[in-house]
């Protein structure tokens, strides 16, 4: 369990993040994060308790207001609740799932969200991520776990030129540096 007495500190606080119309990086607002695993019954119950639909297949991420559920595997989802308190939200979900076997792990302090935006965002990500990020292959709303060079990331497309990247804290400075470097030489379009 996260210790409430320890102040949350961003792994990016001393870094200068690229900004501008062409390419920008920004940390997403603080959020409660969970990795949820379970069968079909647990998925339905968790969708109701969490407030956003846990998608049944790879493809569209379930999103409602400031809550998002991303498909990671056939029985595994990443739940992101912006601005929520992880302890109380976790207890809420657990309460709704007493009869459904499942696993709910609080990973709020394990990873951060990074918003990668601008016309060269996809190009910069492609420097390290082997997926096809063209809009036809990776449409808006699609989310998946993948890799960026040696760092495991969860990639979620929020718009034609905007991506939400979930990355483990210790990999975040590396990812920021690699993306900034890649964006510097990336052609637009």
């Amino acid at each position, binding site marked *: 369990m996260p210790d409430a007495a320890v102040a949350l500190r961003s792994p990016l606080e001393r870094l200068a993040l690229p900004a501008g119309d062409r390419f920008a990086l920004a940390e997403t607002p603080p959020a409660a994060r969970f990795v949820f695993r379970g069968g079909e019954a647990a998925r339905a119950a968790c969708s109701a308790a969490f407030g956003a639909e846990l998608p049944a297949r*790879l493809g569209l991420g379930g999103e409602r207001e400031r809550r998002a559920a991303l498909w990671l595997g*056939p029985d595994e989802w990443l739940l992101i609740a912006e601005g929520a308190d992880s302890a109380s939200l976790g207890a809420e979900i657990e309460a709704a799932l007493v009869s459904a076997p499942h696993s709910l792990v609080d990973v709020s302090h394990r990873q951060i969200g990074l918003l990668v935006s601008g016309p060269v965002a996809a190009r910069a990500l492609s420097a390290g991520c*082997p997926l096809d990020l063209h809009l036809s292959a990776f449409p808006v709303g699609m989310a*998946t*776990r*993948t890799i960026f060079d040696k760092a495991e990331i969860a990639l979620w497309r929020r718009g034609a030129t905007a991506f939400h990247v979930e990355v483990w804290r210790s990999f975040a400075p590396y990812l920021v540096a690699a993306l900034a470097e890649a964006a510097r030489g990336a052609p637009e379009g």
Partner: protein
Amino acid sequence: MLLIPCPYCGMERPELEFRNGGEAHISRPLDPSAVSDADWAEYLYFRSNPKGVMAERWRHVSGCGRFFNVLRDTVSDKFLAVYRAGEPRPPIGAEGSSA
């Protein structure tokens, strides 16, 4: 880069997201103490290593995280079929049909 169709994701994904898990369809003897040393060694250490079609386990480790099985031609490195863990090995010769 090799594109591997993941049966759980339902799409082709780049090779870098996967790990090879060795030969598939090797089952552990149900009662190890009743198995002779030679048979136990056979189970533990000996693999078919064919030149041609081989059934292998792969794990989509940086994706959905699931193990699944494939039929791969070790000569051409071509994936002939992919199927979920627990499903029987499809008949060989169905080149490109179930991938």
